[in-house]
């Protein structure tokens, strides 16, 4: 974002790799099933029922997926509000992850909606229902998806401005004989596209900060509302999760999940693209995580104790086991990050990031699905088709990420780091790509 273009680089490499085609396979299976769903109804592809009207499409794709997509939000909070600019190089890849996470959460909802053709009602003030938590979430998520795309625009505009249009020119050569496009017109057309892109870029740069701040405000609103959403389920949600603190817990939860996603995603893409690990920046992020997770844990446990839920916490039934797993995953991985040594090991950073995402995600899953009990006689387990649709949507996210980082300048430029504020200057691996992507300095 911003005008710091030399901070980022286009990831070199082929577009059509083996993972590309594996992911494409999952995408196609998912899309085929989605098409089938629109002809046969939601029931034909899901294990949903009137008792469990929401399944993994909501619990994972929306409630958990958007938290995994909070990297952009969490980093923006750190950079622009906390004034920690050394993390700026990480933000574009985080924003890109967020773009996919949010847009595809929206897409999942459309697949999930029974009467999707009426969704235009969200844009008709006469149908707005201010009491509805979902109304707030829906408008907020739609706005935030737009804001995310705007935040990503500088990377696109930069590419448009500096593109040599090789592929356009090449395909025009191929077309030349048959369709006779005017070579001069084409040239001037492409030049003006570049010019306009450059022009817009300058303008956008001036107002971008207002979108960035909007991109901090909106997730604060809808992430907390995602928690409020289940308050109305009342006694259907187990008292281990049903509390007036749901909005607060969801908000804090998405912040530490956001940071763990940044850790997870950065290490994973450094590994697979054989880049140097951004241990320097990540260790700084990892230092904050235990505090937010700890605060979350304090609110979570304090609330449970205050509501006399200790017997339920240790009842060792289904709910209690999932509760303990959730607490253990979050507590354990946050504890890992307390040790400075662990924060400088890419392996530990990756592990704790992954575990924290898992634990934080499990909390949301518990609230939306596992702790939800509509009464006797109802049960839910996702069907294969339902699961494959979610898998397809995740595949679109990864595929899109892999593709776009090779087209637009998204990845941090390893030769360009921010000067450090004199802190933790050990194990700088800038420019040294370890063989096989394995971190050398451990």
């Amino acid at each position: 974002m911003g005008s710091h273009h030399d901070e980022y680089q286009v990831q070199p490499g082929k577009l059509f790799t083996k993972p590309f085609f594996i992911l494409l396979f999952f995408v196609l299976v998912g899309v085929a099933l989605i098409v089938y769903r629109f002809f046969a109804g939601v029931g034909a592809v899901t294990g949903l029922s009137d008792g469990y009207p929401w399944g993994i499409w909501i619990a994972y794709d929306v409630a958990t997926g958007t938290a995994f997509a909070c990297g952009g939000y969490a980093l923006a909070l750190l950079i622009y509000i906390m004034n920690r600019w050394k993390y700026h190089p990480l933000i574009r890849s985080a924003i890109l992850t967020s773009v996919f996470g949010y847009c595809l959460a929206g897409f999942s909802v459309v697949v999930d909606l029974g009467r999707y053709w009426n969704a235009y009602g969200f844009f008709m003030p006469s149908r707005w229902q201010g009491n509805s938590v979902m109304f707030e979430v829906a408008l907020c998520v739609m706005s935030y998806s737009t804001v995310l795309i705007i935040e990503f625009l500088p990377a696109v505009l930069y590419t448009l401005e500096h593109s040599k249009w090789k592929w356009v020119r090449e395909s025009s050569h191929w077309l030349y004989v048959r369709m006779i496009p005017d070579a001069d017109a084409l040239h001037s057309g492409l030049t003006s596209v570049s010019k306009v892109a450059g022009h817009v870029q300058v303008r956008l740069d001036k107002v971008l900060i207002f979108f960035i701040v909007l991109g901090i405000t909106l997730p604060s609103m809808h992430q907390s509302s995602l928690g409020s959403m289940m308050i109305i389920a009342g006694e259907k949600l187990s008292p281990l999760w049903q509390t007036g603190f749901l909005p607060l817990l969801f908000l804090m939860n998405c912040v530490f999940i956001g940071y763990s996603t940044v850790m997870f995603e950065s290490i994973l893409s450094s590994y697979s693209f054989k880049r140097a690990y951004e241990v320097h920046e990540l260790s700084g992020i990892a230092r904050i995580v235990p505090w937010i997770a700890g605060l979350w844990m304090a609110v979570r446990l304090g609330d449970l104790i205050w509501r006399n839920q200790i017997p339920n916490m240790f009842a060792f039934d289904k709910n209690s086991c999932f509760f303990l797993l959730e607490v253990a995953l979050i507590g354990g991985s946050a504890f890992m990050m307390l040790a400075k040594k662990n924060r400088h090991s890419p392996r530990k950073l990756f592990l704790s990031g992954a575990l924290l995402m898992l634990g934080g995600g499990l909390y949301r899953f518990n609230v939306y699905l596992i702790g939800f009990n509509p009464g006797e006689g109802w049960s839910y387990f996702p069907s294969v088709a339902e699961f494959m649709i979610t898998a397809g949507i995740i595949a679109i996210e990864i595929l899109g990420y892999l593709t776009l980082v090779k087209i637009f300048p998204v990845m941090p430029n390893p030769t360009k780091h921010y000067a450090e504020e004199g802190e933790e200057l050990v194990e700088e691996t800038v420019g040294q790509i370890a063989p096989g992507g394995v971190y050398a300095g451990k």
Partner: protein
Amino acid sequence: MRSQSRRDFLKLMGITGAACLASAAPLSASTGPAADSDTAIAMLYDATKCVGCKACMSACKRVNFDQNNLAYEQLESDKDKLWDAPLDLSGNTRTVIKLYKESDTRFSFVKHSCMHCTKPGCVSACPVKAMTKDPVTGVVAYDKNSCIGCRYCQVACPYNIPRFQWDRALPQIVKCDFCKHTNLKERGKPACGETCPAGAIAFGKRKDLLVEAHKRIKENPDSYIPKVYGEKEVGGGNHLYLAAFPFKKLGLPDLKEESPTEFSEHIQHTIYKGFIAPVALYGTLCAIALKNKKAQDKLGHTEDD
């Protein structure tokens, strides 16, 4: 440097907290009293009078068939498709009679349909006003023309009343609306109450029916559980029950008197009252971010460096 980062950490905590502190703030004024209006209409189902003939079910489906695009649900053994035999409420069935059998001689029928809550969760949950509560009659009705099929109403209903047409490409939510657009409009009474040959379904003003229900308990204390179900559950509703067995055994959940709907609206309204908090948050964050950006640009981390 360490103290610097600690201060920054506190700042982060403060801002993260500020974004949501409102949610933990004490609840402000309620959105409305749970007490029902004098004009509300209601249905009193007396399980001790019901003979289980299911005439109400067939009348209900006949009258509302087209409105919800309902279908008959035949048993597999019914090869001639002669009988409508739904096992439960569904996307094809707005009301159903069930049997609770304690022994061969002690049993009770029970009618399931919408409770028409005073503070309905479905109405509060619906993002597009497809579920509405009539301010005069108190009838909770569904409008398929604005419904988006998100099924949040199903999540929100403590009685699991709204049903979805899972097997349709163009599905609807199906629930009782006291025949608002059909029998009530044309004949002044829901079809079930009009049809019932046993007098198990009384229909009228809620306040009158409550008096009647308590009178029946008082006059025949041995025949009834001393409780009118629907009077106070989650803030009360316009479908009242009398029965000889504990209501939980009949499939009617034990619910607290507090309404989760009211609690949810409390929290949402506290956070979003007048949209002040979000705007204030945006303004504050803008000020901080602009200040930080200016300082950062001065340091020379712009594209010119």
